[in-house]
């Protein structure tokens, strides 16, 4: 089902854990879809000096988290902002179609951690916010997010969107 490199990262995940005095924290996903990811970063001279992740999710989600931390480590913040879910999936030599979106939250978590770092160090010059990749899989149906890949219509009592973790009644670009 998965490529060798996905299985390698799943079985021996890199950079597992949580940096206690992190400079930035990114948290995405929710357990409804079965995937949640937390990324913590340490920044030194505008570079990602250290990065760790924790993930609740399937094999793909764990491999994605591991890969994204490996890709980001040592990069400048600007370079790290250019890591996308597509580039992570490519590095993993592809993911099954139904995992391409829902389980591929690593880049989002990384970007959130970086934005969190910028927010904390406000006043500094921030690079232009990267334009969000087009999220074709999220549509709107009767005011709720849904994802045709996981065929998940979120019932009302579920308060958050599977993609961004925000309340469900909103539109993705």
């Amino acid at each position, binding site marked *: *089902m*998965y490529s060798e490199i996905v*299985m390698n990262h*799943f*079985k021996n*995940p890199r950079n*597992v854990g*949580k940096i206690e005095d992190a400079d930035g924290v990114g*948290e995405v996903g929710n*357990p*409804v*879809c*079965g*995937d*949640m*990811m*937390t990324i913590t970063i340490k920044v030194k001279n505008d570079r990602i000096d250290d990065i760790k992740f*924790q*993930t*609740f*999710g*399937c*094999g793909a*989600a*764990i491999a994605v988290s591991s890969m994204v931390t490996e890709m980001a480590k040592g990069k400048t913040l600007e370079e790290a902002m250019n890591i996308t879910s597509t580039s992570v999936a490519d590095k993993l030599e592809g993911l099954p179609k*139904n995992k391409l979106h*829902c389980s591929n939250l690593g880049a989002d978590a990384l970007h959130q951690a970086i934005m969190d770092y910028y927010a904390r160090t406000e006043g500094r010059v921030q690079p232009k916010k990267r334009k969000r990749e087009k999220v074709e899989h999220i549509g709107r149906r009767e005011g709720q997010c849904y994802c045709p*890949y*996981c*065929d*998940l219509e979120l019932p009302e009592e*579920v308060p958050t969107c599977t993609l961004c973790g925000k309340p469900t009644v909103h539109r993705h670009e």
Partner: protein
Amino acid sequence: METIYLDHISAAPLHPEVKRAMIEYLNNGFGNPVSQHRIGDVAMEVLEGSRAEVAKLINADSKEVVFTSGGTESINHAMKGVAFARREKGNHIITSNIEHNSVLKCLRMLERLGYRVTSVPVDEYGLVDPADVKRAITDDTILVSIMHANNEIGTIEPVAEIGKVTRERGISFHCDAVASAGVIPVDVDEMGVDLLSVAANQFYGPSGVGALYIREKTQVWPLLDGGLQEDNRRAGTHNMVGIVGMGKAAQLARQEMSQRMEHLLQLKRAFVDGLGAIDDIFINGHPTQSLPNLVSVSVSYVEGESIVLLLDEEGIYISTRSACASGSLRASHVLLSIGRDYATAQGTLVFSFGMINTLQEVNRALEVLNKSVETLRNISPLYKKKKEG
């Protein structure tokens, strides 16, 4: 690497005697049972022999058994067949919240055609309350469909009590017995059912063949139209090799049932006892009123597919109902119905035992499961949050 197969609910190896009977038929038989010559007569004899075995397994009369292509077809036949045949009488159907997708999707389709569906809830063990079924009945109710044993959590429903209710009111009662027939005793008279679905692959028979029991005088339309096979109830040339296999499997299941159940229960008990060593898990389903061959366990703070992958690495094969491993990533409706939250439902595993399994295998599976859960919990942010309070 030692192979430990604990996914018998998905597929099971053929019983050696079933395989032998099928090969024997492949080598020597080929006739069409509806032909009017001697070769056809020989095939007809084989067909009726198999039918008699399937009938005996569920305590039915031979002429009330229709061969189908498996559980899904049997269920579709029963649901749609009764709904269409009794349309003049009413348009209301009652079911439960934990039925198999075959039932649920039939009903979704029937709803689009104007039928009304009431789905009764289940308790924390997955049990339907017959009183709920009784309350849901209206003058328009034509069909009740409740499963015998649930395929995900193993709970056995109080079918006989529901059968009494439907009989009193003259409502057709279909029971999905795919997970139970051939595993535990099934008696169509005791259960009071009018239709009952069976699949051969649940009791060491081949996949692609099943049966639908239709009580005499039950109004039901055919699902497949065409030739006059199966007394005009199911058209299509018979899958003779499959039917031979199903007949043999039914015979063996009936003869060996009590010793099979004893063996499976012993494995199940040992497994459930061993699960006590893992924190924060739930064993789903009723503690006693459940299938002997299946244990459903929800492991908090981890996702099911990742456990399946780690066990796979160690040669242990199980399945998940997090559905993450299958096409849909939706959490199981059965687990949500018995009150599991989304995250816990995603961390659910199904261990289903078979006659090839041993106690040593069960112990090894427990050991590897314990280790895998620990590994994944160490990565999980949910587990970290819990530990930090």
